[in-house]
Each structure stands twice: as structure tokens, then as C-alpha cells.
């Protein structure tokens, strides 16, 4: 288009002794706007890459706040089950704070016989009862699955008490939530 117009203008300019030179120049002038087509190509490429990545992410799993999960080579996908989050400050069950930790450990008044955590046991019992009531068809089929998200710096002396309490509350199928280690 521009080329054709330019050709006509130059011939007119030669006929009329430079009278229409300005007009012909404006006609041959190329657009100075942004080349959006190439930008669109780049954006589309990024978009496809992001969408491909997005489809691989199990985004319905919420990582607790104030927590640093350890990395693992496991490839098991997350499942839907009761979630327990153990940070350096508190223990949460189903996103509800059950007890506070004192200096990264369980407070003495929360413990029974040095191992059983009373508030946690009560909470787990309540959740177990609710789960059994909801499952009217087969009351013996309580799966007892619990997913634990724990901070990587926590010590076993503290985790032991939580695991012991979960075990006594019939939550024996423990799954540990960790971050997938990058293989590359």
C-alpha cells in the first residue's frame, strides 16, 4: 500500500515541479506505531508455557503460613484428608489453631503423662466422631488419614508428641506434606 502510493506521488511530483512533494512524502510515510503483532506472538508463547505449567500444579493444597517445608524426591500427589499444620509457634488442625507452642515445644499444661497433647486429642476425637457420624453406611470404615505439614527445623522430641496423640486418636495413616525436589 505504502509502496504504491509512493510510486504515484513521485510521478506526480515530477509532473508538477515539486508542488506536491510534501503530500507525497506524507503518503509514503510508514506507520510509527508499535508493532503489536510480534509482541502478541511473544505473549502467546509465554501464555502457553504458563498454562502448561499450571496444569501440572495441584493448586488445591494450601501450604500453611510461617512454615518452611522440607524438600523430598517423592512424587505422590496430594490427597484430600484432614490437615494438621505444625509451625514453630502453633499447631493447627483444619486451619484452626488448636494450641500454641512455647519455645518450639508443647507447653507442660497441655500434656498428659508427658506425651499426650490434651487439646489436640480432644480436637481429633471431635473430628473423628464427626467423620464416623457422616459415614452412616459403614461406621467401621474410618480411614484415619492425616496429612502433616511440619516446619523442617522442628525436632523429633516435639513431633513425637503430636504423632503419639494422632496415633491414640486413631489417625494412624500419616502422610507428610513436603515440597517436590527439583530433579534438574
Amino acid at each position, binding site marked *: 500500500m505504502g509502496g504504491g502510493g509512493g510510486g*504515484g506521488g513521485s*510521478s*506526480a511530483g515530477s509532473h508538477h515541479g515539486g508542488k*506536491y512533494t510534501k503530500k507525497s512524502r506524507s503518503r509514503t510515510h510508514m506507520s510509527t506505531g508499535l508493532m*503489536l*503483532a510480534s*509482541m*502478541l506472538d511473544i*505473549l*502467546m508463547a*509465554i*501464555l502457553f508455557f*504458563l*498454562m502448561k*505449567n*499450571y496444569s*501440572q*500444579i*495441584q*493448586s488445591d*493444597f494450601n*501450604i500453611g503460613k510461617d512454615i518452611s*517445608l*522440607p*524438600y*523430598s*524426591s*517423592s*512424587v*505422590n*500427589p*496430594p*490427597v484430600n484428608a484432614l490437615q494438621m499444620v505444625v509451625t514453630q509457634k502453633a499447631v493447627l488442625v483444619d486451619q484452626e489453631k488448636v494450641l500454641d507452642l512455647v519455645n518450639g515445644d508443647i507447653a507442660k499444661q497441655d500434656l498428659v503423662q508427658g506425651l499426650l497433647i490434651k487439646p489436640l486429642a480432644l480436637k481429633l476425637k471431635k473430628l473423628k466422631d464427626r467423620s464416623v457420624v457422616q459415614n452412616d453406611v459403614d461406621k467401621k470404615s474410618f480411614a484415619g488419614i492425616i*496429612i502433616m505439614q*511440619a*516446619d*523442617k*527445623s*522442628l*525436632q*523429633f*522430641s516435639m*513431633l*513425637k508428641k503430636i*504423632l*503419639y496423640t*494422632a*496415633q491414640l486418636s486413631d489417625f*494412624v*495413616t*500419616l*502422610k*507428610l*506434606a*513436603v*515440597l*517436590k525436589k527439583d*530433579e534438574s
Partner: protein
Amino acid sequence: MAKKPSDRTHRSRPDDSLNLTPLIDMITCLMFFLMMFASILPVVMIDAPLPKVASTAEEVKQAKNDEAKMEVSIFITSKGFQVKSDSAAEKSFTIGPKGYPYEDLHKYLVGLKTKRPSSKELTLMPSDDTSYEVMIGAMDASRELYKGDTGYQALSPEIANKPESQQFNRLFSEVSIGGV
């Protein structure tokens, strides 16, 4: 034939090219949301069944049958790992300059597995001061075979790094946490 200047139209012709601006706006918005969600770190699970107290006669019988299998326990202390099993002598791995010797532990476990390939179970016995991160590292070292290990099967790219891959290259697939 060229028209006279007075006959030429001075009206600007409408731009017949595609207006890409709204399309770019839309893609930018999409990208923003996708990038926001892509920042979520991928979470995976490790099965760590807690030891259950055998209460029924059937469970006690099952436990007795299991005695025929190899029992492997890894004791984790602040000094390193100590592996105890009924088919080999006790073996210790002390902490080096790079931290806990996960590689050495893994190689030793591969050797144990070749003695009794049917064994699947392993118990971790962490000391009180063991951090959760070290426990996860020990679980990783015990759970599966690595590339180059005896019996390692190369997987096709379709199933590698997917849950289906867990049918292959198992070392001690059932790692439980003891001392609870």
C-alpha cells in the same frame, strides 16, 4: 490514470488492520493470574504409617508371619546414622563436612536389599534432637533406587516423575516412623 488533485479524495480511509490492543490486554491479564498461581510450590506426599498396636488375634498372627522378613532400623542421632538389621552387622555412618551421609546410607541399604529382595519395610528411629528435615532426607535415601544402583530400571519419560513410577525401582517402600 492519475486523477487531478481536486478530484482526489481527502477523507482518510478507515484502518482495516486487526486491532490487537484489547487482545494484548486480555493476554496480559491472563498471564498475571497464571504467574500468580504458578508461584505456588508443588506439594507432594510421603506415606509414613504410624506403628499400630496389634490388638486382635489375627493381627498378632500377621505380626508373627512378618518375622520371616528382614527387619531394618535406622537410628538417627546428632552423630549420624546407625543401621541395624537381622541379616548384617551394625553399620554406622558419621556426619561429614557436607552434613548427614545420605548417599552412603543409600548405598548400604541397596546392599541390604539385594540380600532379601522381598523386604519392603524399614523403621526410622530418630533421636529427640533430630530435625524433621533430616528425617525426610533419610526417608528419601531409603525409599527408592537411584540411577546406577543395582536393579535400577530406566523409566520412559511418560511415567518418570509421575505417581505411576512408584511401581518401579523400590528399595524399602514402606518406611515408618518408630519411637512414637
